[in-house]
């Protein structure tokens, strides 16, 4: 098996300006934040990010000017409200928005993953998502005489970014018993390149103990990067909780340009060591303890 373990720097080189980037993320759940910070630090431009329901990562990318387009079912910070920088980017026209229903987003990714030109859904019928001239959606007849469906055009990704519990050096990625996070199944298969950050690197023998918890085979992964707390400040079940303090700190400043810049310089445009120092070991330990099983 081929070696896939590499440095953060080398992995980030797999993401290029103008790329279509698949981002695993929920409002507060398990986004590959160390990669997101890396893209911002490296000044990546003009990214088209595809996310099911990302929040903080999208807001940071928008704030840093990396984002030109976003395909999503939702961009939200849940109880922290709207993603203000993303929202301003869309309202000002700097970021173009392709909004899809969840089944449509999965259909677009699934079609790309399986080499199909489209997959259908019965979602969105009756909604205005079909009335905004989206060239990637087409209502077509059922050849068997049933109801029409919405064909959702394949959306191939240049690169997919994920975070998970563990991997071996060969790119086999394992998780713990828990829900598999949104799009972790389909995104890597829809992408030409796949980067996974993990909490720990283990031997393949460790994965062989629970081979049904290996969720990505090494042959589908291009780069594995060791990134303990790599999802912080989002949560990583069952390892650590999301960092409510940092979310609140961001929300408090994200409507103000100067405060946003300062936050980005303190917490985002810093290398992993600098980031962990800025957060502090006590806070990380507290987030781990929060998740009592």
């Amino acid at each position, binding site marked *: 098996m081929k070696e896939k373990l590499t440095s953060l720097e080398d992995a980030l080189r797999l993401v290029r300006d103008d790329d279509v980037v698949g981002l695993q993320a*929920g*409002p*507060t*759940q398990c986004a590959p934040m160390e990669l997101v910070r890396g893209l911002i630090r490296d000044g990546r431009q003009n990214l088209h990010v595809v996310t*099911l*329901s990302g929040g903080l990562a999208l807001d940071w990318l928008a704030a840093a000017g990396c984002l030109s387009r976003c395909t*999503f*079912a*939702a*961009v*939200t910070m*849940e*109880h922290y409200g*709207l993603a203000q920088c*993303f*929202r301003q980017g*869309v*309202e000002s*026209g700097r970021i173009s*928005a392709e*909004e*899809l*229903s*969840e*089944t*449509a987003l*999965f259909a677009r990714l699934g079609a790309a993953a399986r080499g199909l030109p489209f997959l259908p*859904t*019965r*979602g*969105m*019928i*009756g*909604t*205005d*998502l079909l009335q*905004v001239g989206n060239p990637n959606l087409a209502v077509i007849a059922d050849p068997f005489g049933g*109801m*029409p469906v919405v064909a959702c055009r394949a959306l191939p990704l240049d690169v997919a970014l994920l975070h998970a519990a563990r991997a071996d050096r060969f790119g086999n990625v394992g998780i713990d*018993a*828990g*829900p*598999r*996070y*949104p*799009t*972790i*199944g*389909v995104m890597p298969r829809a992408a030409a390149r796949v980067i996974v950050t993990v909490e720990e690197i283990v031997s393949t023998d460790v994965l062989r103990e629970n081979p049904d918890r290996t969720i990505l085979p090494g042959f589908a992964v291009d780069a594995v990067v060791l990134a303990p707390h790599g999802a912080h400040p989002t*949560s990583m*079940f*069952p390892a650590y*909780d*999301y960092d*409510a303090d940092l979310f609140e700190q961001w929300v408090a400043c994200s409507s103000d340009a100067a405060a946003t810049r300062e936050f980005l310089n303190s917490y985002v445009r810093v290398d992993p060591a600098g980031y962990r120092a800025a957060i502090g070991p006590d806070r990380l330990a507290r987030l781990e303890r929060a*998740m009592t*099983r």
Partner: protein
Amino acid sequence: MSNPSSGDADSSPAADYTVDELMTATLARCLSDGDQITNGISSFMAVCAIELARRTHAPDLVWIAGGSGLDPLDPRMTDSTFEWPIWQHSSMYFELSAQFWDYVANPRFLSTFFVGAAQIDAHGNTNLSVIGDFHHPRARLPGTAGLADMSALDKRLIYWVPDHSRRTLVERVDFRSGAGYLDGDGERERLGIGGGPELVVTNLAVFDFTPISQRLRLRSVHHGIDLETVLAATGFEPVVDGPVGITPPPSVREVTLLRTVVDPQGLRSRGVRQPREKA
């Protein structure tokens, strides 16, 4: 878990209750033993209603907590309704969203959804996307998430509105993120979509829908609220085609369970505007 848990078994109407307790109990009563239900983000009231129903009249209710954890034991309410405290002790984990939709899209399963939205209109269409033009919005909202799907997939939709106002209840939504009855008069059915909105529970009143025109119809106002207040706070003219009753109050048991077991922190009241009592 499926056994009704401890709590005051008094089914008599509570004399002392808040509007969020009334709303939650009203939502809970929409669920029956045979339902399977899930919840999305920012859905405290829905989660409390589900848990209340599980602990009262619907012990066999199936709940996929946060779209991922089946039948969790003693879920813990926290600031999020989509995080691990509500699904940490589950009997099955779904792949978040992906596998979950495989079940939702199936007409046999998950026939009922609780829906919150930024705008609801006179025909029960909902908006979570934009205020203003889609391509040049005055306000970019979070986005449809699962609403554009579940509203088009033959499901029974129950709306909750914590802030009944002319801003949230409008004649026509700026953007249809979710399909209600569209322009009414059977347009939804003609597109081949079954189900539809059934009830709208606000902090002032309860609405259902007229059968033909498929517009919101006032069914009851909450205790202490008068009809004029409701009409003045509504951005369209709801149908009033008979005597408007008082919304049945929660029982003593329901209120006690909510306060002591289901949601002692009171997260269900987040965003709920407490109506002023009439003089």
